[in-house]
């Protein structure tokens, strides 16, 4: 018996400004199944639909057509609140621009998903410490975010995304704002942690080199996906 795919796209299309003459297809009939634990890199040029694909996968956006499912649950059939809860329970997100909050400390930024989930503080604080130690930033836990370098900030963001042990990790150009040295460091870290945690990882990147670190590389071109 095959395991339920971690992420499924079934003939998913996303059109912006559908009612106007100048409507634009961000994605065209994209279909795939990603089994649990797989690491997939999606490459493509700017405007190819990579971020749109990740937004749909995270339930941040809904497709114009088709079905997006997380472990068999069709996100489009869920209410906005239900999708939010799925995101809370099942998905970790890493962004190109880190999106850390300047008024929170390093530890507090990592714990943010826990605050939102309303879990017991002691539970996720311990988990936060573990993750920070993994990425080598435990001694910076009480520092202000603005004191960190770009690479350090992205490491904090990765910790945040893994705090609640999500099954699916989605990363949108996680090294897009980093120099080469930090890119490699961060990418390897993310892959290592994802493997350790048993996460399914889907990440978007421009870099062929970083893409090659994944189990599979898929190419997205003008909204059409070509799994290689």
């Amino acid at each position, binding site marked *: 018996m095959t395991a339920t795919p971690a992420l499924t796209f079934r003939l998913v299309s996303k059109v912006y400004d559908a009612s106007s003459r100048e409507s634009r297809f961000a994605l065209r009939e994209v279909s795939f199944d990603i089994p649990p634990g797989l690491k997939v890199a999606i490459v493509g040029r700017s405007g190819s639909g990579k971020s749109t694909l990740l937004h749909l996968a995270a339930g*941040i956006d809904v497709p114009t057509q088709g079905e997006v499912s997380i472990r068999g649950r069709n996100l489009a059939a869920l209410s906005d609140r239900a999708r939010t809860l799925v995101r809370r329970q099942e998905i970790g997100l890493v962004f190109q621009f880190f999106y850390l909050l300047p008024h929170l400390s390093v530890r507090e930024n990592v714990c943010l998903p826990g605050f939102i989930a309303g879990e017991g503080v002691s539970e996720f604080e311990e988990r936060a410490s573990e993750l920070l130690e993994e990425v080598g930033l435990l001694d910076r836990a009480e520092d202000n975010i603005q004191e960190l370098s770009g690479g350090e900030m992205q490491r904090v963001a990765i910790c945040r995304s893994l705090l609640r042990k999500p099954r699916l990790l989605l990363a949108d150009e996680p090294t897009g704002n980093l120099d080469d040295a930090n890119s490699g460091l961060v990418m390897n870290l993310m892959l290592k942690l994802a493997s350790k945690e048993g996460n399914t990882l889907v990440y978007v990147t421009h870099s062929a080199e970083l893409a090659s670190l994944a189990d599979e590389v898929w190419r997205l071109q003008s909204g059409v996906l070509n799994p290689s």
Partner: protein
Amino acid sequence: MIRYFLAAWIAHLRKAPSLFLLTVLGVALGVASVVAIQIINQNAIGAFSAGIKAVSGEVDLTVLGQTTTFPEELYSQVLATEGVAAAWPLYQIDVALADRDSFFLQVFGVDLLSQVRLPFNSSPADFSQALFEPGWIAVTPSLALEMGWSIGDPIVVTSGMRRVQLVIGALVDFQKVSPLASRKLAVMDIAQVQGLLGSSGRIHQIDIQIQEETHTEELILRLENRLGPSVQIVTPRQREQQAAALMGAFRLNLTALSWISLFVGLFLIYTSTQASLLRRRLEFGLLRSVGATRAQVFGLILGEVSLLGLLGVILGLPMGYWVAQSNVEMVSATLTNLYLLQEIDSLQLSPSLYVLAAGIGLGGAITGALFPAIDISRKNSKDLLTAFTLHEKSNSLALPVFGMGWLVLILTALWFWFLGHSWKPAGFVLAVAVLVSLPLLTPFLIQQICGRIKTRGFGLGYSLKSLAARLQTTSFAVSSLAIAVSMLLGITLMIGSFRRTVEVWVQTTVQADIYLTTPSWRAEPEATLDGELVSALAGHPGVVSVDRLRRLLVSIDNKRISLVGVDMDLSGGQSRFPLLTGDRMEVLGDVQQGGVLISEPLARKSELDVGDLLQVYAGPGKLEFPIAGIYYDYTSELGSVAMDLSVMGEIFGPGPINSLSLYLEEDRDPERVVDEIKARFPDIPLQIRSNQRLREEIFEIFDQTFAVVRILQMMSLLIAVCGIMLTLLVLARERVSELALYQALGASRLQIFRLFVGKGLGMGLIALGLGSAGGTVLAAILIFVINRTYFGWTIQVYWPGWPVLQQLATILTAALLASLYPALRASKTPAAELSRDDLQ
């Protein structure tokens, strides 16, 4: 550039209509507060001079009695004085309508035979019977309509104990001559007024027209030498100034309060402008990069702000008029009750008010926007086109600005202590220092209180912590609310303390069971009680003792002050005059030997003390009395003097009593005895009140006096609450990415809604804390400095627990309600709104 300006303005208006509306509303409320008070102030003075103008027309000089009336014989002396072109006498008396005790006609007795063309002479009314028909009176058409009177109808009025029937002889529209004249103005022949209602052989004033080429000052000197010290000669301007001075303190305090509302509004403008400019920095960067100069960008911003200000003025002016109109009755009652001035019948907007409204609306808007406008226009295009944050800068400035706030407070306090305490407006300087320091202290306090919170969840703590992240935006909203809270609380504490002080004072001094006087006693010293009536009341069943009060008006420092004579020896009567210092029995002894007691306001304002000689001008001329004691008195800020009744009789001759207090047997019901007296003397115009009823009336007047103050407080609060709403809306717009992040991380809309409500609550709580501290200090300044300087009263500090709690709860609720709409907007931010900037 103008085309761009208009297009940009309309586009931004469409994009953020709620921000625009809130800003305009803030300006409008600020304008309305100031304009409302100025309308009332101006019309209060206007009402005073309008009545005189309507009857006398344009005069050059007026002869007035030092006390009230003076001998008619002086009129011929005036006419005979070189330089006098024409003169005419007037007798003025307020009479009550017999069936409506507290409704007064303002009757002017004029010489209708005079050659002088009085302003209403040209009206179509028929004056031919004025001299011949007993009780002939001309009233205004508006009053006749209100009362259902026609020409020929009899009306019954009371003056003192006299009940007199008058007949409506003509309808004269005095308001056509002078629009602010009261509808209750009436005119009779002077001889009729003197005979029927007043005193024969006495007049109140002589109006004078000067011959051409006569020097006014020289004529005044000639008249003073000729007429003697029993009168004063004043110009119309001086008369107006005297009236203005009477209620000067009252008006000044109202004006100061209204300006606080405007001050609060400035913060709203600042927040709105700042937020708008931050959002549009790319637009300005683009303009600069395609060749717009700094001056053009600056002009563009100020142009938009000016339009906002103009709209605020357009809205605020009618709002201010409406507020004034809604409160004119209360203020008018205060003027008549406390200052014995004419009531305000109608309101007029003078051209100067339009100018004032435009000035404060536009000026306020520009002032509030000036700093952000200068800041943005000084930046170069590169800075504008890249993301930057003001909040880093404001975070680092928080401590030095906090220091500045303390510096302002300390320096002002030191100045006051060593130099300023003898300067009359010093109290206002202190108050301004407190209000100015609050916004300086706020950013650092938010930083310290909110920044240090250890986040434990996504609840109130998290909301509070996030306030510290946007200091530039949040501190202004918190400051403006703190200022409004200070004003609210400070004044509530002051009024509460004052009320409690008066309660204790009333408890001590209002001891008799029944109080009797005539309906017109307040305004008319001639309103006296008949001797026979007094004897009859003293012998009424159940009456144990009576306290007689005789009142004369004297002149002290050219101000009319009440001199009351009472039986100082009355058993238990010492409590009527609670002393500031000194042994009661000793002081009583001195008073019975010819000394006087002066009220605290008189003592403070005239800088008099026990042992000094009080110089008065009264009927017999200039007199001096040793001051035996100073007593607490809250009936009038003008002051009063008390002496023994028998000593008064020796000095001024025997005279009738103005009011009477009855002490009853223990088991007697005062209300029943009141009814008995009314039944016993049905035809005598008497105002009879039980102790309970009198106390109730005293506090009705008290509460009425402060009614308009409460309106101003509420307007300030409303502006500040608009500021909270505006700030939260700005945050919801500015922080779109942050809100999207929360959604992306799994926060529900309800959680984001609660987050924003928490921010509003947080701002409310911080403002409450700051405002409570500020309000306490402000209350102290009001009680111990401003009140003492301007009104002369001692107010015992008292914490009116329940009213204060109610107010604090109201403020917090208002802040909470203000956060609901922004919270709703914020909760609708979709997770897809994540973008590259705005999280910084």
